[in-house]
C-alpha cells in the first residue's frame, strides 16, 4: 500500500494545483456556472494540451496518456478543491473510462485521441432513473443489427456539451455500450435543472439514433463504475478540505464577545472532529486509488474499496459543508459567501453515482458479507 506519492506525482500535484489556482478562482467559478455550457473553452484546451489531464489513467496502447488511477485521483482532488468548471468528469473520467474498458483497441484508438486532445467532449449516458448506474434495469434497446439505439437517459453529466455520447442499451438482451454522435438525427437533448450549477446535467432521448457498437461482448460496467467512484471520492475530499480550511480561517478572524470565535472550545472541538472525519475520508480515497492501481478496477477488491471510499467521502464532504455554513453564521447562508458553491457540489455528489447507504451495502456484498 502506498500512502505517499512519488516525487513525480508530488510535482504533478503541484502543477495541477497551480493550474487550478490560476484558472479557477471563485470569481471564475461564479461566472462560468451562470452560463449554459458552464466552462471556459480556452481553459479546457489548456487543461488537455498543457496539463495532459484527459486520458491520464488510460494506457497509451488505447490512446491514453499512460498513467494510472493515482494520477487521476490527484487531478480530481485538486479539481474538487478548486471547483474548476470543466467537462472533465464527463469526458475525462466517465466517457474515457467507458471507451477504454468497453471498446476494442482499434475503436479506442479511433475515439480517444480526439477526447484526450479536448477537441471532442464525451459524455456517458447510462442512468435512466434516479437509482440506476449499473445495468440491471436497462430499458434502452438497440436495433438487432446494433446500428441504432432507442431509449431515454437522465442525469447525463455535460450531456449538452458533448459531441460524443457513450450509451448503454440492450442488444439481444445483453447490456452493451454504443458510441452515438450527439448531433445525429434521432438524438434530442435538453438540460435538467441541476442544483449544483457547476455540474451540468441533461436528459437525452434516442429515437432510432445511429450508433456504433463498442467491443465484442457484453459490457462489464463494474470497472467503469469503480473508476468513476474513486475519481469522485478524491474530488470530494479535495472539496471537503477546502471547506475545512475556509471554516478554520474564518473562525480565527471573526470576533464576538471580545474574542475570536475560534477560541471557543465549542467551535474548536467541532473543527477537530471535522478534521478527523476529513482525514479518515482522505485515507479511504487514497487507498481506493491504490487498490485500483494494484488490482485493477474490475474485481471485488476494487468494488469494496471504491464503495467504501464513496460512502465515507460523501459523508465527510457534506458534513464539512454543513459545518462550514454553520460556523460562518448568517453570512454563510448568503449567495455572496462562497461556501454554497461547495455545499451544492457536496449535496449533489452525495447521491451522484449512488448514495452512501447504497455504497455501504455494495461494499459489504463485495466483501462477501
Amino acid at each position, binding site marked *: *500500500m*502506498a*500512502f*505517499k506519492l512519488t516525487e513525480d506525482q508530488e510535482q504533478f500535484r503541484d502543477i495541477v494545483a497551480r493550474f487550478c489556482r490560476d484558472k479557477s478562482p471563485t470569481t471564475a467559478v461564479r461566472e462560468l456556472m451562470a452560463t449554459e455550457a458552464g466552462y471556459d473553452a480556452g481553459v479546457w484546451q489548456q487543461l488537455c494540451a498543457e496539463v495532459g489531464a484527459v486520458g491520464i489513467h488510460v494506457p497509451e496502447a488505447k490512446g491514453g496518456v499512460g498513467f494510472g488511477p493515482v494520477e487521476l485521483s490527484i487531478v480530481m482532488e485538486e479539481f474538487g478543491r478548486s471547483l474548476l468548471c470543466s467537462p472533465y468528469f464527463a469526458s475525462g473520467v466517465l466517457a474515457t473510462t467507458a471507451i477504454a474498458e468497453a471498446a476494442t483497441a482499434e475503436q479506442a484508438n479511433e475515439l480517444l485521441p480526439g477526447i484526450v486532445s479536448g477537441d471532442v467532449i464525451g459524455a456517458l449516458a447510462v442512468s435512466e432513473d434516479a437509482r440506476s448506474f449499473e445495468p440491471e434495469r436497462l430499458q434502452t434497446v438497440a436495433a438487432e443489427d446494433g446500428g441504432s439505439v432507442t431509449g431515454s437517459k437522465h442525469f447525463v453529466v455535460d450531456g449538452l456539451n458533448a459531441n460524443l455520447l457513450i450509451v448503454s442499451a440492450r442488444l439481444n438482451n445483453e447490456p452493451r455500450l454504443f458510441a452515438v454522435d450527439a448531433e445525429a438525427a434521432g438524438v434530442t437533448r435538453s438540460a435538467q435543472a441541476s442544483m449544483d450549477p457547476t455540474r451540468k446535467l441533461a436528459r437525452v432521448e434516442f429515437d432510432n439514433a445511429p450508433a456504433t457498437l463498442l467491443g465484442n461482448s457484453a459490457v462489464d460496467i463494474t470497472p467503469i463504475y469503480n473508476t468513476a467512484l474513486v475519481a469522485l471520492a478524491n474530488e470530494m475530499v479535495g472539496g471537503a478540505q477546502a471547506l475545512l480550511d475556509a471554516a*478554520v480561517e474564518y*473562525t*480565527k478572524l471573526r470576533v464576538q464577545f471580545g*474574542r*475570536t470565535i*475560534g*477560541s*471557543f*472550545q465549542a*467551535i*474548536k*472541538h467541532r*473543527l*477537530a*472532529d471535522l*478534521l*478527523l472525519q476529513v*482525514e*479518515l*475520508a*482522505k*485515507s*479511504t480515497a*487514497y*487507498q481506493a486509488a491504490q487498490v485500483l492501481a494494484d488490482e485493477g478496477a474490475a474485481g471485488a477488491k476494487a468494488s469494496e474499496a471504491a464503495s*467504501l471510499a464513496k*460512502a*465515507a467521502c460523501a459523508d465527510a464532504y457534506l458534513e464539512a459543508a454543513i459545518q462550514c455554513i454553520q460556523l460562518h453564521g448568517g453570512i454563510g447562508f448568503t449567495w455572496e459567501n462562497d461556501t454554497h458553491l461547495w455545499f451544492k457540489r457536496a449535496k449533489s455528489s452525495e447521491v451522484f453515482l449512488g448514495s452512501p*447507504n447504497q455504497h*455501504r*451495502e455494495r*461494499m*459489504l456484498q463485495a466483501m462477501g*458479507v
Partner: protein
Amino acid sequence: MAEIESLKSEVRSWIESNWDPGSSLVEWRTKLADTGWGTAHWPEEYFGKGLSPAEGAEIDQLFADMGVLGVATSGVRMLAAATILEHGNDAQKKQYLRRIITGEDSWCQLFSEPGSGSDLAGSTTRADLDGDSWVINGQKVWNTSAHHADYGLLLARTDWDVPKHQGLSYFIIDMRQPGVEVRQLKQMNGHASFNEVFMTDAIVPRENMLDQPGNGWQVAVTTLAHERRGFDRIRGGGALAQLEGPIFDEYRREVEIDNEPYKWYPQRAGRVDLILERARETGAIDDPVIRQDIARLLTMSQAAQWTAGRARAAQQAGKPQGPEGSLGKLAASNIARLASRVHTDISAMDAMLTGAESPHDGVIAEILVSVPAVSIAGGTDEIQKNIISERVLGMPKEPRFDTGPFRDVPRNVSET
C-alpha cells in the same frame, strides 16, 4: 550493514557461552546488567553499551529469535528507567536502574489526583522540606500496579507562590512505608486495574528528588512522552512466554502480574474483530439497518488504520508530521463507541446479560461496560480536541484563569 552483522555475531557468541536456562531470572538478568547486553542502547556506565536505539532493537530481536529472555520491561518500570536516565543524577542511576532491569523492583506512577486529571499541573499533593527529608501529604489516583510497587514516580507541589507548572517537583518515593496507603479502585466493569494512593506524612529523603526543585513538570513530560510511545505496545510476553523451563515459569509469573491490569483493554477498544462473527452467528447480518452500521464501523476502523499508515509513511520519508499523526486516539474513541453500539444492536436482548450468561463467555458484556474508558484514559477526547485544534489547525487558545501564583488559582472546593 556489515557493522550490524558483526555486532550481532558478537552478541550471538556471547549468548551461546552465557545463556543458562537453569539459572534464576534475577541471576541471568544480573549478568545482562553487568555486561550491558540487556539494555545495549543505554550508556556504558549505566548497564548499557552506548549503542543506538536501532542497534539496541536489533539486539533485542536477536535475543527473542534465539529464545533467550531479556531484561524486565513489563509494567511501569521502563517509564521509570527512561525518566531516571534522562533526569537522574549519577547516584540515582546507579541505585535504581539495575534493580529495574533485573525485575527485582517494580514501580508505579503517582501523577493524577482526584482534583487534577486533565489539568495534571494543578496537582495539590504537597512536599514540604523538614531537615533532610521531604514530607508528603496528599492523594493520588489511577495508579496502575501501585499495590505491588516498590517505588513510585511522584509529582508533588513544592512551591505555592509561583505559576502552577513552575511549583512542581518530581520524586522517587519508597512505597513500602507507613505513610503510604494503597487502596485498589474497582471500576464499573468489575476489574480493579488501578489504585488510590494516600500519603500522610510520608517521607522522601532529600536526595530522592529527580532533577531540580520546580522542574517537576518537565520531568513528568518525559515520563508521559514515553507512556504515549508505549501506548500501542503489544502486551502479553510474546513467544518467549510459551517456552518451557523454570526460568520461563518465573517470567510467565512476572508478565502475568504486570499484565493483569490490562486484561480488559481489547474490550475497551470495542472488539471490531468480533463484529462479523457475531452478526453471522445471530443472523443480524441480514438486517439492512444493522448492515449499514456494520459497514460504517468497518469503514471507520479501516480508515483509521490507513491514516496511521499515512502517518508512518510520512515519518519514514522524513516529512514533518501532518494532521494524520495526531488523530489516532480520537479515532479510537469514535470507533470504540460505534463498535459498542453495533455489538448492542447485534446482541439485542442478550446485551442485558453479563458474565457467563452474556455471549462469548462475557466478552460482549465486558465490551459494553468497558468502552466508556477509552475516551477518558490517557487524555480525554476533550483534551485531544483541544490539542488537535490548537496544534494542528492553529486555532487560538482559550483565555486562561490559572497563570498567576498557584496559591490564588481557583480550585475544587475539597482542595481549598
